[in-house]
């Protein structure tokens, strides 16, 4: 146990050394930094965002992002900066534009199509097995229920 603690302490500085210290002017700026590093994709490593990646290019882009934030650029300007250099690829959250309408609307189209299919199946099933009772059945039912109530 003691050795384990010692071992863990030994690695502490290494881990801390890998974290970039950033100073932000405001909590809002920090929030935007964290949001962008989560939403921007590392161009080198395919399935990691900027925050998770240790690739040199991700480090550079975090640095650049920080610089842009300190310069007071707006969210749109930052996204434009990244997209003109690295393409739409870097956006984990694609922009809503004609080219991506299908992408954004697809799930809703699928849901609508599924509902149409489900409703048509239900309708057809109901048409095949009508649940309404005929007059004869209704009088029989009344009789049975009446008998029940006499007991």
């Amino acid at each position, binding site marked *: 146990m003691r050795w384990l603690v010692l071992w863990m302490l030994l690695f502490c500085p290494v881990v801390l050394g890998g974290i970039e210290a950033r100073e932000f002017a405001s909590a809002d700026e920090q929030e935007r930094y964290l949001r962008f590093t989560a939403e921007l994709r590392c*161009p*080198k490593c*395919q399935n990691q965002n900027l925050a998770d990646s240790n*690739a*040199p*290019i991700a480090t*550079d*882009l975090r640095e*650049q992002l920080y610089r842009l934030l300190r310069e007071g650029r707006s969210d749109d300007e930052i996204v434009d900066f990244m*997209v*003109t*250099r*690295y*393409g*739409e*690829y870097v956006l984990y959250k694609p922009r809503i534009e004609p080219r991506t309408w299908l992408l954004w609307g697809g799930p809703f189209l699928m849901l609508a199509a599924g509902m149409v299919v489900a409703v048509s199946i239900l309708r057809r099933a109901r048409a095949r097995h009508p649940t309404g009772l005929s007059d004869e059945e209704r009088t029989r039912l009344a009789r049975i229920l009446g008998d029940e109530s006499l007991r």
Partner: protein
Amino acid sequence: MSRLRLFIPLLVFAGLAALFWKGLSLDPNYMPSALANRPLPAFTAETLDGGAIRDTDLHGAPALLNVWATWCPTCAAEHAYLNELARRGVRIYGLNYKDDLQAARRWIQSKGDPYIANILDPAGRLGLDLGVTGAPETYLLDAEGVIHLRHQGPVDERVWRTVFEPALAGMGSGRRAP
């Protein structure tokens, strides 16, 4: 009508098969340059041999812009083929990306110099403007400095024949015969 409906699963299967056939044969690592068909970003920089260079200096004829660094093992593997291309008369500019100046000079001295000039980019700022993701990367520029394509990874004979030669032929300008 109900007979035809029996074919719906077959059609769905055929559609999905076509989709996966196409989708799974794509290279997930292929990433076209966001700067394709756009001019080289404007820059002024120092060169490896102490001169100055700017974006318009690369104009005049089709050229390659090769991003390299001494810390990049693949660049070492690629270098011999770049020398070969230079011998064939291909114009190659280098972008020495986030590198150590002395190490880069030693590299050129020992491995040969296929480059017309080497742009120094010690901080990677020009690389960032170009959308460089790592080294080696090679951009194909036309005579007006417009980026036609970007290739990530080493350029070798196969890549030259399948990627660069067709693009050069497509430019229609006088490509120098190998």
